[in-house]
């Protein structure tokens, strides 16, 4: 099975246009971009995919050891780019994918024209002078709650709890719901996401970068976004007047506009 099937890659939009890759964050899948990506399809080549272990990716191929760090996810991004033979890519990464994209541009800068980091955080846990927004105990509790959350593990545990395999419709229902993830993978992915520390990588980002920050974001608070902007050489910093961590869902129009402005600026300068 090729990387395109493995990661449920959807290649659409204007085939001659500049390629834009949209990458989802922790907790969901490519559906997250459904209000934003279509608006780019007219004049850009739009590539969507699911991170390994998430959404429609082939979870049977997911190996917790291989995916024990963000580097492997970045390698997947490069594989997609090579498989589709994309050049001058603009990579739009939300949340953890902002860092995945950053690592990809650092490893293979020649393929990228720009990077958009939506709600990025290079490190979630507070650390001697650095404000990440979380205490280690809070992250531990998240990992624990992922184990016990009904919704989170319903997919895997439903038949056990119900002891009723005669009701497959229930399982079907859960299968088709959005943003589903195997609880074991969710836990491992959460570990990688929330325990990684990529602060040192920021200075190595060598492509034009836009940091898109929500005004009131509990996951990646504004000081964290400002920190990223300050660390990434020559980056732009745009704050959307939106609450929450997912501006592409709660304020899709504004989000799309900010991205488009950045991309068009790249066009103009190239």
């Amino acid at each position, binding site marked *: 099975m090729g990387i395109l099937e493995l990661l449920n890659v959807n290649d659409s939009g204007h085939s001659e246009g500049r390629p834009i890759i949209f990458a989802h964050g922790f907790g969901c899948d490519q559906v997250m971009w459904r209000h934003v990506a279509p608006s780019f399809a007219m004049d850009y080549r739009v590539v969507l995919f699911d991170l390994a272990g998430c959404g429609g990716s082939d979870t049977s191929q997911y190996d917790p050891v291989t995916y024990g760090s963000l580097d492997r996810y970045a390698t997947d991004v490069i594989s997609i780019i090579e498989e589709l033979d994309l050049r001058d890519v603009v990579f739009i990464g939300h949340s953890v994918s902002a860092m995945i994209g950053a690592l990809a541009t650092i490893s293979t800068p020649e393929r990228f024209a720009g990077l958009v980091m939506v709600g990025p955080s290079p490190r979630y846990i507070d650390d001697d002078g650095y404000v990440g927004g979380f205490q280690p105990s*809070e992250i531990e509790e998240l990992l624990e709650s992922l184990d016990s959350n009904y*919704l989170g593990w319903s997919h895997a545990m439903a038949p056990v709890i119900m002891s009723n395999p005669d009701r497959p419709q229930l399982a079907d229902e859960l299968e088709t719901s959005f943003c589903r993830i195997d609880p074991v993978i969710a836990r491992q992915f959460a570990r990688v996401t929330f325990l990684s520390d990529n602060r040192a990588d920021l200075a190595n980002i060598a492509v034009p970068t836009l940091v898109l920050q929500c005004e009131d974001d*509990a996951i990646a608070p504004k000081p964290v976004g400002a920190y990223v902007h300050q660390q990434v050489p020559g980056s732009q910093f745009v704050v959307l007047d939106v609450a929450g961590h997912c501006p592409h869902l709660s304020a899709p129009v504004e989000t799309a506009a900010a991205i488009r402005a950045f991309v068009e600026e790249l066009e103009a300068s190239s």
Partner: protein
Amino acid sequence: MTEPGELSHVVADGPIGVVITDEVGVIEWVNGTLEKWLGYAPDDLIGRRTFQSLLAPGGRIYFDTHLRPLLHLQREATEVALDVVRADGDRLSALVNFRLRERPDATDSIVEIVVFDATQRRTYEAELLHAQRQAVRSEARLQVMYDIASGMAAAVTVDDIVMVVAEQGNSSIGGARCEVWMFDEERRLVLGLTDRQTRLTLPADFPDADQSPAYRQLANGGLVVIGDRELSRQEYPIVCDWMANSATQSTVIAPLMADGRLEGAISYGFEEAHEFDQLELRAASALAASTEEALRRARLVHSELRSRQRLEMLLEFAARLSDALSLDAVLDVIAASSHDLLGASGVTLALVDDARRNLTVVRSSSLYARVGLSVPIELGSIASTTFRTNAVQVAAGRKEVEERFPDSPFLSDPELGGCVAVPLHRGNEVIGAWVLAFASPAEVDDVTLVELFAAQAAQAAQRASLHTDEVIARGQAEVRLLISEALNRAVTTTDVGRAITSEGRRAFDADGLAVFVLDTRNSALLELGSFVGLDRASIQTSVPVDHLKQRWGWASWTAPRFLSTHAEVSATVGWLVDVTGWASAALLPLGLAGTELGAAVVGFTDPGALVNSVRVTLSGLAAEASVALARARRFDVEHDIADTLQRSILPTVELTSPGWSVSTWYQPTSSLLVGGDLFDLTELDDGRLILVVGDVVGHGLRAAAAMGALRSAAKALALVSSRPADVIAGLQAFATAAPGVFCASVCCIEVRTDGTGRYSSAGHPAPVLRHAGGRTELLDQGRSALLGIAGSSPSDAELNMTEGSTLVVYTDGLVERRSADTDEAIAHLRHFVGAADFDMTAHQVVQHMLGDRTTDDDAVVVCLTRTM
């Protein structure tokens, strides 16, 4: 018909919490029930707090990363398990439904949130989750057990085993660090041989049983469990000190016992405090048990190999010496054997002169002590000292040679690593010194073997000294050749006895000859072997070794005695055999390196029969017969070793459960080979008994090792499986990991305290159940293929043991014989079992079925009786 007013009452104060927030999450309305549950006043919440800010931290992240996107995408999310934090900091376990709905004016959306108290349900789910985690862990542990068991099957040395355990054990108990400790020579507990660089020793006082409660506990076979170092410092100060040094916060230590004595321990350490659960403690014990077993096996194999190796060398040396008919020839053999048998880098032989003043080198491979070199016996050289003191001298290292033997010429040798010197004897007389040089001090370790060699050499020198006339010696050579050939053909001790009597009588024209050999089971007793020219009734059939020593004046069992008058013969031998008509006799000791193996009496009517040449030849006969006897004895004893090895691996079964009795019997093969039959009985805490009987294909050490591995795996499975078919399925899986158990047959039986039970069999002969009235039933259901063979998956069949019933489980060695039909044998077994007494034992079953017949296959029988 319910009034709308009542409905609004339900929303306001019913048994559900209701919250309405704006799109961002800011609370716009909250019902009375939730206020009450959470202990907030409405003013604290409305317009001031977001709903997500009421959640525990994990839930907050989950809300923003997963729930909110979900709400946007599908407009609702249901039955989400969340912890809501109360005003007092306590938590409310809740199931929460969310719905996103546009405001009537369509300006924006609101979120309707319904909260159910789910404390009980969450408890239930937590239990399920716990059970699931345990199942996963126990499966992982089991896999490790397999790995360890199959690793151990290939492990031959103690080091191998320690390595296998340390490598595999780390994963058996959730991320623990597993270490093996063994006592060293000084009874200090040394951190396993796994990492020689960091050989840590526990503080020297640890082994003082009175001082250390941990030691006492381990020595009594108990576990030492420390959940948190800080809390156990009072109780186990020494262990806690060690834990602090190795950054371990919690640990469980299991004892490794050998013959009821503590020989080491296995420790599993965690970096954090850890509450050990029952399964983990069981896993620790099970791992320790299989380690013990493997260690026992390794020791047996090791000591057997070593003693066999020594014996081989000694036999070779003795054989070479038996050809040496002069002192010169003896010296040649000693010099050559020093190199190729004892592995010495250099050898020097020196003999004392007639005046007993100087030692003169007569053979030497050293440049520094050349042949012809003569030194006074008072000199402080190693040879002179050995000669003077008539005692072995050992110098392990150049430095020691310098200090103790400053005059040694070998000190000029820059390569010298160490020396061993033994006195050279002719009979009991010291005639010189034999110095062996070794390249490294480590090689100077088997002094006993050198001493055994020296004893052989002394006998040979003694024999050689009798060769006053070389011509006679050549004349007798032909006779010796005949005897040699006969002895070489001899395999068993009986063969050797026969070779001596028949050939000896012919060669020497003896009138009577009797051979006594050491009893295989009682080494203090000599038994009549074979005889010729004598009447059986006139010979003592057994005689204590000590008695013979005393009567024949044999202090060292090395020198033949020759009696030349009837009176002397009568007084010395008359009590043992009928000496009527004998005018002379020879008493020949048969032994190796001072160990008694037998004795021979040769009688002649001719008073002049024992001329010098005959004496020489008889001495040679004794030497060669001794070698042959030692070889034959090894053959006899080896069977016992195989048997011991097998028995050591099979458990001693003692049931503590009231209402049951068990008897077992293991019948080894008649040949030398170890078989692969096994059994194991496990008593579980709830009173269930799990019996496993199996048969590994093949013979020999490999089969015995596979058998040990299979038994370890079966034991581990019995501890964690809920039914026999699971044990069989587990062993099927094990067979893929451990090739040695391929095609083994296994039967697993589980009985509960009330006598009901289940069984499952993988290609194993059907057990026989004898009911109280004598009716027998063949348990031939629940069958699946031999281990490692694809086929139907294992299934269980039921059985019921009423009071007074007996279950007989056996391996095919009991019913399969080359010449007979197996079905017939099973029918025969059923008949016997049906008619047998209530307290029939496994041994009785074996005796009845096999009698004294020799068997090619070993057999195991287990009889389990429900007594009440």
